[in-house]
C-alpha cells in the first residue's frame, strides 16, 4: 500500500511534468518556426509597399494600415461601453436580477464563436446599415466581440480598489460621480489597460469575423468606409490559396511579433503604472 501510493505519486508527477513540457515545446516550436522562416522577409520594402499581383509580390502596408484602423475603431467604441458597464455593475447597483441579466449577456457574448459574429456583422453592419465591407463594419463587429473582455477586466480592476479610496473621496465632499471618476478609476487604470491590451491582441489576431465584415480588398484604405484586408486575413488567404509562402511567413512573423509585443508590452506598462501609482 505504502509503496503503491509512492509509485502512483511518481507516475502522476512524471505525467504532469511531461504534459507541461509538451505544451511549452509545442508553443515554442510554432513561434520559432514562424519567426525563423518569416523574419528574413521583414524588410523595409515589405512593410511599406502595398501588395502586388494578389500578394505574390510587394508588401503588406495596406494590411498593416487596415489592421490598425479596424483595431482602433473596435477599441475606441468598446472601451467606454465596457468601462461604463463595469462601473454600473460595481458602483451603482447591488447584486440582483439586473446584474444577473447583464452578466449573463456578457458571458454569452464571450462564448459566441467569431464566425457567428462575422455573420451578424455582415447582415447588420454591412447589409442592413449599408456600411458595406469596410473598416467601420469590421471595427464595430470587433467592438462587440471584445466588449465582454473589457467589461470583465474592468470590473475586476474596479472591485479591487480598496473601499477606503471611495470613503476618502466621499469624505472630501465628492458626489458619487466624482468619487468614481477621481478616486476609483485612477486606481483601477492598470487593470483596465490590461483588458484593453488583451482586446487589441484579439483584434489583431481575428480572421473569421473580419473577413466577413471588412472584406479582403488589397488596396490602401481611403476612409473608414473603405474595405480592407487585415494582416491575419491576408496571411490566411496567402497560406490557404498557396499564393506566396514567403509572404505568408513574413505576414505571420509580423503578427507573432505584434502579439509578443502586446503581451510583453502589457506587462511592462502595468508595472510602470503600478510603480507610478502605488
Amino acid at each position, binding site marked *: 500500500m505504502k509503496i503503491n501510493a509512492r509509485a502512483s505519486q511518481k507516475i502522476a508527477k512524471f505525467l504532469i511534468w511531461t504534459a507541461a513540457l509538451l505544451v511549452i515545446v509545442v508553443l515554442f516550436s510554432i513561434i520559432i518556426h514562424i519567426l525563423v522562416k518569416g523574419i528574413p522577409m521583414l524588410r523595409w520594402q515589405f512593410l511599406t509597399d502595398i501588395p502586388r499581383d494578389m500578394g505574390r509580390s510587394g508588401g503588406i502596408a495596406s494590411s498593416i494600415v487596415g489592421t490598425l484602423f479596424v483595431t482602433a475603431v473596435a477599441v475606441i467604441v468598446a472601451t467606454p461601453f465596457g468601462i461604463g458597464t463595469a462601473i454600473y455593475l460595481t458602483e451603482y447597483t447591488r447584486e440582483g436580477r439586473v446584474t444577473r441579466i447583464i452578466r449573463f449577456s456578457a458571458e454569452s457574448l464571450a462564448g459566441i464563436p467569431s464566425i457567428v459574429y462575422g455573420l451578424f456583422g455582415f447582415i447588420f453592419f454591412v447589409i442592413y446599415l449599408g456600411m458595406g465591407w469596410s473598416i467601420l463594419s469590421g471595427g464595430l463587429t470587433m467592438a462587440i466581440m471584445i466588449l465582454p473582455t473589457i467589461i470583465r477586466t474592468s470590473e475586476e480592476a474596479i472591485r479591487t480598489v480598496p473601499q*477606503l479610496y471611495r470613503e*476618502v473621496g466621499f*469624505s*472630501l465632499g465628492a*458626489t458619487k460621480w466624482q468619487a468614481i471618476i*477621481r*478616486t476609483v478609476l485612477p*486606481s483601477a487604470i492598470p487593470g483596465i489597460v490590461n483588458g484593453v491590451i488583451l482586446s487589441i491582441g484579439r483584434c489583431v489576431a481575428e480572421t473569421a469575423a473580419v473577413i466577413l465584415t471588412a472584406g479582403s480588398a488589397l488596396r490602401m484604405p481611403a476612409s473608414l468606409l473603405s474595405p480592407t484586408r487585415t494582416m491575419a486575413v491576408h496571411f490566411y488567404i496567402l497560406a490557404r490559396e498557396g499564393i506566396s509562402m514567403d509572404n505568408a511567413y513574413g505576414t505571420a512573423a509580423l503578427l507573432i511579433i505584434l502579439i509578443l509585443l502586446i503581451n510583453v508590452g502589457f506587462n511592462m506598462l502595468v508595472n510602470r503604472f503600478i510603480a*507610478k*501609482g502605488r
Partner: protein
Amino acid sequence: MIQKSKMEIKELSFYYQQKQVIKGLNLEIPENRILAVFGPANSGITTLLRTLNRLSDLIVGVRQEGEILLDGKNIFDPDINMTELRRRVGMVFDVPTSLPMSIFDNVALGPRMGGMKAKRDLAEKVEKALRMSALWDEVKDRLNTPAARLSGGQQQRLCIARVLALEPEVILLDRPCSALDPISTAKIEESLMQLKEQYTIIIAPHTVQQAGRIADRVAFMLMGDLIEQGYTKEVFAFPKDNRTNDYLTGRFG
C-alpha cells in the same frame, strides 16, 4: 471658562442591522479645541466619528436616532447638502490613504471636486494646506512625484493637508497615528496643536497617552455608552467613574 459648542450630539443611537453600537449618546464638542474620544476597541468610537460627517451612510443596513447639530443645524435634516457637510466636517483615516496620483493632485483633489479650476488658486490652496500640515518643506520640490513614494508619516500628513485644503470647520481624525512611528506621531501632534486655533478637532487617539498629550477635553466610551467626559486633566487625575479609572490604569484589556 465657558466654551462655545461647534457641534452638539443629542441622544444619538446607532444600529448596524440589529446591533446597537451607540447608545443614546449626549456630547458637546467645543469650538477651536481638541476633543479626544477614547476607549477600548469596539466601543463605537469609529462609528461615532463616521456619523459626524455621515460617512456612515455608505454602509448598507444602518440606522440612527437622535440629533447631531452643527452650528445649531441638525445634520440629519432632509434638506442637508451631503457634499457640503463633508466639506465642512473633514476626515482623516487610520491608514494613511494617499491616492495613486501625485502629491499635488492628492491635495488639490478636494478643491477640484468643489469646482476650483484655476491653476494659481489651486497652487495657492495646496501650498497653504501643506504648510499647515508641516509637510511643505519636505515636498515642495517634488509636488509632481507620486504620493506613494512618501513615508507613512508623510503620507498621513498629506492626508491631513488634503482635508485642510477643503477649508473645513471640523476635522475628524480616526486613530491617525496608529500606523506611524513615534517621530511622525510627534510631528502630527505638533501640527494638530497649532491647527486647533482655527479648527475644531475631534480625534480618536490610538493610545490614552496621546489623548493626554494633546486633548483639551476627553470623552471615554465603552460598549457604545459615553461613560465620562470633561477636561483632560480632571478626567485623567480624578476619574469619577470606576470604569474610566480601570481603563486609565490599564486594568482593562
